[in-house]
């Protein structure tokens, strides 16, 4: 329990530090949302300053930070000037979409990577392993932006999949079941793209972790006892190899979140990515801070989950 407690405190401290860092960074940014308004000769400088003070933009930095922290606790995360609404509710819908996408992609990637990784480890050095190794290193060298654009090209040229968006036009009027089907249909390409980005790294790590274990004496003994090959791999070797893989799960979330920004923009999935890019271009500071905060919360939470899984899986950590 002390282990988890320590992890929690560490995560909280990290998040506070990140919040201060990202808030401070964006407060020193030159120019603000009202720059375009200032250029308009029909709006007097007084009016602009009036609006600025109405939103509290003319207060000193510590006060603004304190106010922002207060609204963060209340779930508001400041106020979006471009959308004219609190940031919190704005982010909620977007975050849900991003989580749906990244969750599906993670599931897909691990479901694909586990059998491939285990199979190549069992076939180490054979033809199948070599082909798989070549395939993973080829996939690794293809930049993810290219991959996503290729998916878009596929969707546009063949028409097999919707070329972006999350629901078809008029999809809101459908019944619950057909709506789920519609969203799932739109989810295929972006989730596939993200999964393919993660796949080679996962396969490589699973393979090397399994190879380390497969050489262990206890497995040779188990084989000698006549335990079937498949059972040996999945029930005996995999749990022992699980440790580095659980840590990998924590690490892979960072890659996943970064890649999801791109896939969301390219395949116009209405997640956090497009919101972030729009907010940067519009100088909508609180939305930028909000999205950055949220992404780091996802990452920290993912790492915490990985830590807890590790705690559950490995008795050595519990003793320590």
């Amino acid at each position, binding site marked *: 329990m002390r282990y988890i407690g320590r992890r929690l405190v560490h995560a909280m401290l*990290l998040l506070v*530090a*990140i919040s201060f*860092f*990202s808030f401070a*960074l*964006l407060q*020193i*940014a*030159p*120019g603000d949302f009202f720059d375009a308004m200032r250029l308009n000769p029909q709006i007097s400088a007084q009016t602009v300053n009036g609006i600025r003070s109405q939103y509290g933009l003319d207060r000193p930095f510590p006060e603004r930070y304190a106010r922002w922290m207060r609204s963060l606790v209340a779930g508001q995360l400041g106020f979006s000037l471009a959308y004219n609404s609190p940031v919190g509710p704005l982010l909620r819908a977007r975050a849900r979409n991003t989580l749906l996408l990244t969750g599906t992609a993670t599931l897909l990637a691990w479901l694909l990577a586990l059998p491939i990784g285990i199979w190549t480890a069992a076939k180490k050095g054979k033809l199948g392993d070599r082909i798989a190794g070549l395939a993973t*290193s080829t996939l*690794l*060298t*293809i*930049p993810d*932006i*290219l991959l996503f*654009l*290729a998916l*878009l*090209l596929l969707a*546009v*040229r063949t028409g097999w999949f919707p*070329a972006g968006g999350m629901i078809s036009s008029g999809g809101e009027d459908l019944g619950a079941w057909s709506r789920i089907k519609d969203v799932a249909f739109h989810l295929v390409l972006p989730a596939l793209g993200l999964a393919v980005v993660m796949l080679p790294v996962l396969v490589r790590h699973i393979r090397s972790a399994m190879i380390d274990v497969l050489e262990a004496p206890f497995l040779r003994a188990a084989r000698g006892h006549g335990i079937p090959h498949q059972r040996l791999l999945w029930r005996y070797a995999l749990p022992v190899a699980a440790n580095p893989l659980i840590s990998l799960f924590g690490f892979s*979330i*960072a*890659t996943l*979140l*970064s*890649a999801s*920004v*791109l896939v969301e*923009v*390219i395949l116009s999935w209405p997640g956090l990515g497009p919101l*972030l*890019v729009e*907010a*940067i*271009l519009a*100088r909508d*500071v609180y939305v*930028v*801070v909000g*999205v*950055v905060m949220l*992404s*780091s919360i*996802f*990452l*920290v939470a993912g790492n915490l989950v990985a830590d807890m899984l590790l705690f559950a899986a490995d008795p050595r950590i519990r003793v320590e």
Partner: protein
Amino acid sequence: MTHRHKLWAALILLAGIHAIILFAGFFAPYDYAAQDREMPFAPPGRIEFFDASGELHIHPYVSIPRAADSPPDVAESAANPYHVYRVRFFVRGDSYKIAGLFPSRLHFFGVEAPRRAYLLGTDGFGRDQLSRFLYGGQISLLAGVLAAALCVSLGIFIGAISGFYGGWIDDLLMRGGELFLALPWLYLLFAVRAALPLHIAGWQVFLLLVCVIGAVGWARPARLIRGVVLSAKERKFVVAARGFGASDLYLLRRHVLPQTYGIVLTQMALLIPAYVLAEVTLTFLGLGVTEPMPSWGSLLSSLQQYYVLSSYWWMFLPALLLIPVFLAYYTAADALQERWKSVSL
């Protein structure tokens, strides 16, 4: 031995790619901003070694579809929808500067002067995609190399101080680094980019991008270098040198930092493609270098429009040329990693 061959192969490929990009003016048939208003979205020309009568030539021909709206010879173009031009080597064309220094007009290949041939087609303004790819590489690769150099130097500086002095300096620097590692990389990049002015021109944006990308990534190399420095400073000959009264600076320069050589090289080989990609991504999203400056990112960003992808698929071709570049870098990084692993064993 094999990783040695791999390393050499990757290095030769890299040298070739960089030479072509460096001398983009020579290898590109046209200027990156030269527009051909008659030929927007021209499809790529086919290279042929046989002429109309089926005779083989050493000089290749390039056949270009006729512009749809060239009325004078409608009948003729219906019979033969392609222009066939003879490709000539070492022709004179648009003026450029060799590696940005010496003016020249010599190009590697081209067709007879008023005609133009586009091997990868043209973009919406009728600009040659191949030329834009080559010139764009100058911006993108330079950004990647400079940003990686900046990042690794920051990493060496911070990692060396952190590992060599230890104590509260070490704690402070490494906790600070954790802050950078705790944010998803692209979000962090965006946050820093968002803190800087949006609309500035030309080279300023470029330098800004280099600084942003380089400054954001220092934490990982710093950690790795700190690790090496920590073990290096305990080596006997370093302790002995210290016993002889060598100063900290001397120790770092002569004994400790040379041991980080392998890590630094590997990190460079890994970071350069990553940072080229970072520049490409930022520019792709409209946060990087702006028109008319070509970069690989702006080349890709035209693909975001559906009509481009649906009607002009060949706009995707230059994107495919990126793959060998990344392949070369990753292979080099892989080989370097293996090499230094086997040295330390």
